[in-house]
């Protein structure tokens, strides 16, 4: 059996993977979001509020958190229809900050003092189970009509539109789904830490989520999985350097990005692995 400490590391790593996937989904359609922490906050506060004040069953609370994240994601998607690249990053960053300040000034949610007394409903099985569902979803979508429309939009928006892709629909769907996944991550997080405050979901959170996905590589959702897993477990492996831990962490990320600027799983590696997988599938 795993120790409590190991289980805790795994749960946080699992939530980090879910958050990295929430960034990857819109990113796979070319929509970079620096506000995933904001969606996570919405999911965390929504589900926590329902659990504490309405004794909602955990699955319902989680679903509500994901729903709110998704609906707000839909709203954030609208500016994305006109903005590209860096400008979109800045707008989503602004959104994340707005959510943080909103909860900071909402007495019903505890304001700066935070929101406590959340029931300990998140178990390792919830995290792994939901993660499995998400991985199945990503694996299926990446080889489907919509998955290709996402990639096409990222590669060349003009060509994608000329070939019949409704870019408005794809962008809104990407942001909404990314927001829903982040909301789900927030719900799991709140019911594990049992206490949440707005600072947990600030710009630092959003940037780490982005780092996980970019570190792992944006060529495939497996990059987000690998990046988040490694970077979220790495601090545990670096405990022995004590005070130097964060410096070493930063240094390792820096070196990795210098050596593999396209991320751990870059396009070439993904192609090699997937053709290997396809051959294996053809044999069986």
């Amino acid at each position, binding site marked *: 059996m795993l120790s409590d400490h190991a289980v805790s590391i795994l749960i946080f790593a699992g939530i980090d993977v879910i958050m990295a996937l929430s960034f990857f989904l819109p990113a796979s359609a070319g929509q970079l979001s620096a506000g995933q922490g904001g969606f996570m906050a919405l999911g965390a506060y929504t589900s926590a509020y329902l659990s504490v004040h309405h004794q909602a069953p955990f699955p319902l609370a989680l679903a509500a958190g994901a729903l709110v994240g998704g609906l707000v994601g839909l709203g954030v998607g609208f500016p994305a229809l006109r903005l590209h690249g860096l400008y979109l990053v800045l707008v989503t960053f602004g959104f994340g900050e707005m959510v943080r300040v909103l909860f900071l000034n909402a007495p019903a949610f505890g304001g700066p003092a935070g929101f406590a007394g959340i029931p300990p409903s998140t178990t390792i099985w919830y995290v792994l189970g939901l993660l499995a569902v998400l991985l199945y979803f990503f694996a299926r979508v990446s080889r489907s*009509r919509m998955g290709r429309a996402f990639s*096409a939009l990222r590669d*060349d928006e003009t*060509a994608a539109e*000329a*070939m*019949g892709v409704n870019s408005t629909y794809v962008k809104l769907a990407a942001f909404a789904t990314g927001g829903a996944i982040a909301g789900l991550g927030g719900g799991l997080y709140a019911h594990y830490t049992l206490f949440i405050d707005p600072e947990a979901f600030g710009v630092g959170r959003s940037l780490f989520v982005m780092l996980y996905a970019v570190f792992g590589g944006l060529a495939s959702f497996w990059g987000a999985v690998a990046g988040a897993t490694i970077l979220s477990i790495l601090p545990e492996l670096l405990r022995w350097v004590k005070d130097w831990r964060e410096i070493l962490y930063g240094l390792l990320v820096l070196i990795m990005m210098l050596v593999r600027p396209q991320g751990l799983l870059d396009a070439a590696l993904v192609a090699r692995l997937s053709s290997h997988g396809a051959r294996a599938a053809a044999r069986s």
Partner: protein
Amino acid sequence: MLNGLDLAVEAGGIHAIIGPNGAGKTTFFNLVTGALAPDAGRIRFAGTDVSHLPPYRRTALGICRTFQNIRLFGSMTALENVLLGLHSRTRGGLLTPLLGVPFRRPPGESAARARATEVLELVGLAGKAGQSAVELPYGEQRRLEIARALASSPRLLLLDEPSAGMNLQETLELEALVGEVNRRGVTILLIEHKMSLVMKLSQVVTVLNFGQKIAEGPPAEIQCDARVVEAYLGSE
């Protein structure tokens, strides 16, 4: 810039647009496919006013194009590029792939792949299905762009300088392909600089210069038209 252009394309034929650089040929294509919106005037397609429809609606109606500067999807294989061309002819949202039997292809995917493979065969790229689109030789990239557009089952196909950068052999193959596509009932609008191709393929040629139509007619007549010789050849 186009100014007061009145141009009708007869269904079923091959209609060429020629003119010196900057005459407005690609602008015309952008207006027809919806990449640009007209400041004034109308664009009608098979009885429907499409002037202000977004590009994807026009693709659904049966208008599709290739690009002068090749715009294939760089992260995708040749087959995936053609599959994307099927977007307007297939259905399925984000959650559709969750339906269907696990470890089998998502619903509709097998039929789409079969259709895309057919189109790749038509342009002679069946053997390159799994290769990265942008790593194909230049001439094959041009043909792949045509395949991607054909996958959308267009009634009107706009080819923007399809022979640019092609050698003689590739140009001959292209000529045969365009002829075959046209025989299958696809109306073709062709921007082309290689006059030999224009002469052999098209029934009607429209000459643009400075955003205006300066001549129109069968290729043999156009070739001798004094205004065309002055505008087109004079500028080279």
